[in-house]
């Protein structure tokens, strides 16, 4: 698939999953070796 020049499938929108507004945001940090 060529997403470059001439493609008709270029997207300028935000993915629906990224529009979800969190009720609360917390942070977790892990080191997996």
């Amino acid at each position, binding site marked *: 698939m*060529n*997403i470059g020049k001439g493609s008709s499938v270029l997207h300028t929108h*935000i*993915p*629906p999953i990224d529009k*979800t507004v*969190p009720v609360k945001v917390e*942070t977790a*940090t*892990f080191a997996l070796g």
Partner: protein
Amino acid sequence: MGYTGGTKKNPSYHNLGDHTETIQIEYDPERISYEKLLDIFWHSHSPESSSWSRQYMSAVFFHNEEQRWLAMESKNGMAATLKTGIQTQILSYTGFTPAEDYHQKFHLRDDHALMEEFKHMYPDAREFVASTAVARVNGYLGGYGTMEQLTKELESYGLSDEGKTRLREIVAKSGHRREACPIP
């Protein structure tokens, strides 16, 4: 992905100092609990193995007293299950330096077509890294998540029809797949 736990200022991959490579997750506790993240963490590494270096040690970096308590409790539970010493450390969080762009979303960067779609959606590197859609697709490309899970979520990633077909084909062709986090 980034660097945590050290004293060196402005660490980088080639000048890491005493930092450790980490992943940092922003999550909604109404949707997934810290206990569930810990459960995934313990099953995503070998807690009984000693690390060769501080760069690659295994650790939980707790952000508050509740996280510290839950991490210790889960570590004790893992020790009882494995019946062996646990090398994974429970340490206080002291800060996080994001890694260089080329270290972020490793599997997605290997797929030119899907990467181009997301770069177009998120020309800003910080927004690209923060995207849930990007994280999910990177996980599928890395061998996590089942076709059943993907089918439920695929429309939410904002991909073109070609992109969706490509991702489905990649997941279908791969062999053993590990469980993904529940949809956030």
